[in-house]
């Protein structure tokens, strides 16, 4: 597989990842990612359809917590590291985008 890492793709990935990349960073990342992707794309050589995917190294299932109220943080703890807060809530500047 030949990777197609372009500056536009990197810029788009920056938007998805919420990192404001400047042109210099975009350029550098485009080169580096191309090299990396060319190297790691080899996984598809052996990842044939008959091979199941493993997402957990040790297979477990049905791991649950009983529905019993446990420890919660105090409001002070919740807000302890807040860059900005008021009225016991976190404060952020205006939101443009819609909810999902």
């Amino acid at each position, binding site marked *: 597989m030949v990777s197609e890492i372009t500056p536009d793709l990197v810029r788009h990935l920056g938007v998805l990842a919420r990192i404001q990349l400047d042109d210099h960073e975009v350029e550098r990342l485009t080169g580096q990612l191309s*090299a990396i992707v060319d190297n*790691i794309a080899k996984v598809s050589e052996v990842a044939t359809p008959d091979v199941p995917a493993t997402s957990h190294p040790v297979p477990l299932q049905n791991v649950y917590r009983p529905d019993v109220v446990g420890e919660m943080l105090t409001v002070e703890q919740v807000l302890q*590291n807040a860059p900005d807060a008021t009225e016991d809530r976190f404060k952020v500047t205006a939101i443009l985008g819609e909810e999902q």
Partner: protein
Amino acid sequence: MSDLIRLTAADLSAKLAAGEVSSVEATQAHLDRIAAVDTEVHAFLHVSDHALEVAADIDRRRAAGEQLGELAGVPLAIKDVLVTTDMPSTSGSKILEGFLSPYDATVVARSRAAGLVPLGKTNMDEFAMGSSTEHSAYGPTHNPWDLDRIPGGSGGGSAAAVAAFEAPIALGSDTGGSIRQPAHVTGTVGVKPTYGGVSRFGAIALASSLDQVGPVSRTVLDSALLHDVIAGHDPHDATSLTDAWPSFAAAAREGATGEVLKGLKVGVIRELPDSGFQAGVSASFRESLALLEAQGAEIVEISAPHFEYGVAAYYLILPAEASSNLAKFDSVRFGLRVDVPGGTVEDVMARSRDIGFGDEVKRRIILGTYALSAGYYDAYYGSAQKVRTLIQRDFDTAFAQVDVIATPSAPTTAFRLGEKLDDPLQMYLNDVTTIPVNLAGVPGISIPSGLAAEDGLPVGIQFIAPLREDARLYRVGAALEALLVDSWGGPLLDRAPQLGGAR
């Protein structure tokens, strides 16, 4: 005083229990050592203000006749990836500068409960992304064997702290080798437990399906003692195993007798190319195998044809999971916020993350975002998860033939600071022998195997055991350690150069 810092945790424990030394004395000795050498080594990001208080409390409780854990009163260094209530937790990142967690990581809570005395938080590559600790936002840690060289990574701080006698034992985390590779380059011991054997709760996540917390020490027994403290089921971590673990310390003590090597089948991977390894690393590895063989172990060549895909799979899975795990650092609830005059919250988030994250972190987040994005998932992330299956099968096949697998812990000895900083791919290849272990979830240990002839720097040997067979690693590791120390006439670290501080 000076002797206190050179004691192993086991020996210090014995002296504490016998009342020959107090925890306050031991703790003060390590704090003095930190004060003396850490300006050179830079293993610590933060030194605790409470260590002596905690030590005094342990001494009081011991004097009152309270039954204490074996390691009670022993100082402990904690990798900054683990959250602590009484010290900042930054994971080596500027974005978390000054962050104070309202809760303790489970391993930290268990260490406190066992009476261990937290000395401070150790340096690391930012968010554990790296193999050299050069990616710390707070400057690199230096290898005590040669201050111009890297101490390995990401847990270079914990390894260097232990190697420089600033702490007898330390906690680390290992996602692709971050405990074992630093052990290799600093002449220390490090263990990556079976995935799920130790709780991840409170370990700032890098790649959830790969991360494991483990011990760092100068001897196999010391790692086992700390492993005994931190192991076991934690209901706060759904991936935590419910297994009842045997005593790893008992396994290490049993191993030190050497009996365990008779008839032990040690697998050596055919496909690991000798050519990729530094000569001194290969030589040291072969010497260790010869020692094992001389004690009755059988060296068996095994095949692991998919290991060569390990690094590629790892650099898809890790960035993918990391890109999601690191999304929480957005300047809303904690961490750095960079104001953007007139900007929306989106602008503030994007700017804060640009300023707050270092280059390696941004590189991997972008890579992971790419690997998961629509249209690429199957080719990249999906394929990488399949490689994981294949590597697990390689291990299954191998462990049907052998008891443990041995590899060099890393391809080279410690390289110079800055040497590979601009070549991420070259840096990634450092973890070629440690990565498959994380992908498969099996346990691995690195112990010092000697010094490379060409540069006089430490080399480690890695043993790998099947899932849940961590105790086997301590048996075998302690057995080889005993043989090696015997052949050297003393611990390897005795040969490390003196640091600025007086011994």
